């Protein structure tokens, strides 16, 4: 997993609430058996018109969002299906961080597993960021630091966020969670022995 320490990049603003993972990656693209190849299908139904050409109205297709790596999203982002294809698509498109008032639980975990930082900010802070992104004539930039747990824009906007230390450490170091868990192999094996003994008693 790619570590996440500090990231500076262009912002794309998607001020819609309850964006579900069916919108992030529609089901017709879930048939791949690899973790790659999902970027071009990101937000497919919103991003392209029925004839396959990019829809200029869609937020990500606007010139100032070109090359965006930070997504501003409405509340409850990533609700619905557990498909990890959603963060795979977001990551492949180029997003490194997603900022929202709130995330759906499974999506939040899936993003962390893929080196994409989900940042929870207060409603007021998100409103201010949406306002600044909209007001900016050219691309709007932010710096997201997981080391400092801060979001700054170099123009007097600063916000702090929190993250569970276990997840933060994994992102900062790009740790493989399976390897991390296997350090507890003796505890897993001991649990299995107790479990087997209980089952033997119940099934005797």
């Amino acid at each position, binding site marked *: 997993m790619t570590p996440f320490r500090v990231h500076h990049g262009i912002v794309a603003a998607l*001020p819609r*609430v309850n964006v579900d993972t*069916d919108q992030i990656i529609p089901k017709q693209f879930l*048939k791949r058996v690899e973790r790659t190849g999902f970027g071009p299908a990101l937000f497919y139904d919103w991003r392209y018109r029925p004839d396959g050409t990019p829809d200029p109205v869609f937020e990500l297709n606007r010139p100032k969002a070109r090359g965006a790596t930070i997504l501003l999203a409405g509340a409850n982002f990533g609700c619905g299906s557990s498909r990890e294809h959603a963060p795979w698509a977001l990551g492949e498109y180029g997003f490194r961080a997603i900022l929202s008032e709130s995330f*759906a639980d499974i999506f939040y975990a899936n993003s962390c597993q893929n080196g994409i930082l989900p940042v929870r900010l207060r409603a007021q802070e998100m409103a201010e960021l949406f306002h600044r992104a909209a007001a900016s004539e050219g691309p709007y930039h932010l710096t997201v630091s997981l080391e400092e747990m801060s979001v700054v824009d170099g123009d007097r906007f600063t916000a702090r966020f929190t993250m569970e*230390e276990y997840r933060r450490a994994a992102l900062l170091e790009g740790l493989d969670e*399976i390897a991390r868990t296997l350090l507890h192999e003796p505890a*897993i094996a001991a649990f299995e022995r107790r479990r087997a003994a209980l089952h033997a*008693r119940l099934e005797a």
Partner: protein
Amino acid sequence: MSGRTLFEKVWDGHVVHQLPDGGPALLYVDLHLIHEVTSPQAFEGLRLAGRRVRRPDLTLATVDHNVPTGDRTLPIADPIARRQVELLIENASAYGIPLYDLAAPEQGIVHVIGPELGATQPGLMIVCGDSHTSTHGAFGAFAFGIGTTEVEHVLATQTVVATKPRTLAARFAGRPAPGVSAKDLVLALIGQIGTAGATGHVIEYMGPAVRALSMEGRMTMCNMSIEAGARAGMIAPDETTFAYLMDRPRAPSGAAWTRAVDRWSLLVSDPDAQYDLTVEVDASTVAPQVTWGTSPGMVAGIDGRVPAPSTASTAGEREAIQRALEYMGLAPGTPLEGIPIDRVFIGSCTNARIEDLRDAARVVRGRKVAPRVRAMVVPGSMMVKAQAEREGLDEIFRRAGFEWRNAGCSMCLGMNPDILQSGERCASTSNRNFEGRQGRGGRTHLLSPTMAAAAAIAGCLTDVRQWTLADPAEAEQVEAAR
């Protein structure tokens, strides 16, 4: 110290290792369900790292998401869908995982067959790479959906890393009116608390209206927990649970059964257990529910109307309603009753169990699907299908003009050929009315099986409380006399 909730009891029994400082815990997984769409990348990761499947005996695989529901003797036409199914067969065989493939009489939607086989039991910790894993909580299991990287983690370690969720008590008082089902109760709850109302929480459903539900109804309720944003839904096991599980293939038998029931009976919340949130719903005032928008929380009673965006409390919600009404092709103030529909889908892990089909059949019996409407029934599993056929339900549906199909997720998510065309309006017993969920441009109204059946006959959304239903026993006699 106060008592523990049902959830806390199950959680505590599965902690392998607790990380310090309120960090997540490593939980042991008793049952890992896998299917063809979210597992291929997990097996690939396992293979690349040279890891094995730790407990194939605690893993169970089936194909459901992308499988065709038409003629099973033909090869799967979609080459990519076929590849996913073939890969699951290869992976299951390589790692020794029990698999119910397309040829198996037990094949079906993973959340239908787990309980049907008796693999889903009270007190278990169950995960699956699918958000509707919350279904299994109906038995008093702690069950939740995970992503593919986590699927790989469970395959390799038989554990999952989880942060302890908070608890939400959803108490359903009163008795629902005839024609009001578990689907209506849970949709009413989601309408009340919103699609993020239970984020970070486990919902425990309780109260007389929940106790009165069959296992099928309880599964419908827990299934929809994720649509309220919940990590999981749970219901304490009782006599209804035990009666459902008895004699199922994977359930304990003989003396082990008695011991199991004794243990399962302890899985109730203590009287002094504390919940982080409590929500009350008066079941006696709930009308049959229908969604009018593109999120399950955009829901109202069938006697209600499409709301105006101006009724929203925040700017974000106002825009969401505006967008939803445009997408759904509905004007504010339109009565829900009478909205014409093109398609009807009775199926999905939410509402395609035997009781759902029996309920729908009571509406359909002796009637005809409206001429313009295309309606289909997709049983949740091949065992549900076989049971329904033994009871003659397939004939009732077929005679009325419904298509009677094979088991799978089908039009709930439209990964197989069963999809809506753009602009088509569908009355659906599934769980998500998201934009494009059932096909790009398709318009979904979520409702219960009896409401869907009535809509098929009427050709529009209609209040099933006004309908005369066939009495099951009486209907049998009519059938016999014919």
